[in-house]
């Protein structure tokens, strides 16, 4: 977040919640993009990642006892988007589950680093404790994604070559 640090656990968890909301929305969008381009396998994977992040989002709200979403309208990430949000530009219509999981791994890693930063910052002890707990959860997610990744070998070079490419030559 630009120019702000969380001073209360409520404020900090609102950021964590906002991060999950943005990640869920993006994974859902990416699943739709892949479906539009008939890449059903990766679409299913992105939809699954959206559901996983959605559970995390709901878990935060439940833990905080929020009956309505916290106000996140004035939030600004330091990075262009939230740490757990996939960049639209990282997609390819021929991508495979391996590539989608590499993106997810990158996102979880950034999320862990984001929370670790606050866990180590000069902040009230209860905020640092909440940040440490969130960081531990994201580290666990990194581990799980890596386990998942092990099921998919890295595609050979040329995976993005289309025998019927969109560009015309004559």
């Amino acid at each position: 977040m630009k120019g702000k640090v969380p001073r209360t656990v409520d404020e900090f968890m609102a950021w964590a919640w906002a991060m999950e909301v943005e990640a869920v929305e993006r994974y859902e969008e990416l699943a739709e993009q892949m479906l539009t381009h008939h890449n059903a396998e990766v679409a299913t994977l992105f939809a699954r990642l959206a559901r996983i992040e959605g559970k995390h989002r709901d878990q935060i709200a439940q833990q905080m006892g929020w009956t309505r979403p916290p106000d996140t309208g004035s939030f600004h990430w330091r990075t262009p988007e939230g740490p757990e949000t996939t960049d639209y530009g990282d997609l390819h219509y021929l991508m495979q589950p391996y590539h989608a999981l590499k993106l997810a791994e990158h996102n979880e890693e950034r999320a862990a680093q984001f929370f670790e930063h606050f866990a180590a910052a000069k902040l009230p002890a209860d905020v640092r404790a909440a940040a440490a707990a969130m960081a531990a959860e994201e580290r666990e997610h990194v581990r799980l994604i890596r386990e998942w990744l092990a099921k998919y070998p890295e595609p050979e070079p040329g995976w993005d070559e289309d025998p019927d490419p969109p560009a015309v030559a004559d």
Partner: protein
Amino acid sequence: MTGMLTHADFKSDIKPVWCPGCGDFGVVNALTKALAKMELRPENVAVVSGIGCSSRIPAYTSCYGFHGVHGRALAAGTGLKVARPDLTVIVTGGDGDGYSIGGNHFLHACRRNVDLTYIVMDNRVYGMTKGQPSPTTEPDWDSKLSPEGTGLREFHPMMMALTAGANFIARAFTGDPNGLADVIVQAVRHPGFSFVEVLSPCVTFRPEQRDWKKLVKHDALKPATDIARAARRMLRDTGFDLGVLYAGDRRPYEPRGRREQRAVAALEARFTP
């Protein structure tokens, strides 16, 4: 719709058909966020476009939309704003649509200074028609359709907008949808003709544009109110400097009470039972 709206309320049920990786997804994201942030309502906003990949945008929003004729989006948008000044008019399109066949409309829209916002998604190529060079394509861009490049100097949209009289000029990047949303909010709120040049990679015909995220310089441009100062700043422009270049105070064209509006009122009266 009642109550506070979120960006999702500004999205339609139609799913974009753009290539995965296309920058234009970031523009839909930013535009809908900006409209929600300004607490506008879809029924009070019109999104007008021409022809091209990016010109599909009106269909992807829940606002009023008009997918018009190639290069004529600004003409349609200007007419709409003059007839219905109560609407927030956003004109959208690409570099081919806006700077080539629509180039003349672009210059005169800047000059007229009607209170609307023009968002151009610039990918320096005609994507929809399979990758021909556009007015902003680099002269040495070597492709199957332009072997060894065109050799033609590229158009500089921001400089053209500045000299032609646009009242607000900015550049943003689709890889930063939240930053782009902020720029769109400023553009819509600024009176007169606001021009937002958006660097929007075409990953299919210009895959090298995936590297734009490493080249852009956030907040490199600071808003000047003096045209000469803004012009001098443009002489040092890398093409990847982001931010607001110019925010002028020229009075917008004010249609209220003018002949154009009276003509619309007369026309409406004919259809009123």
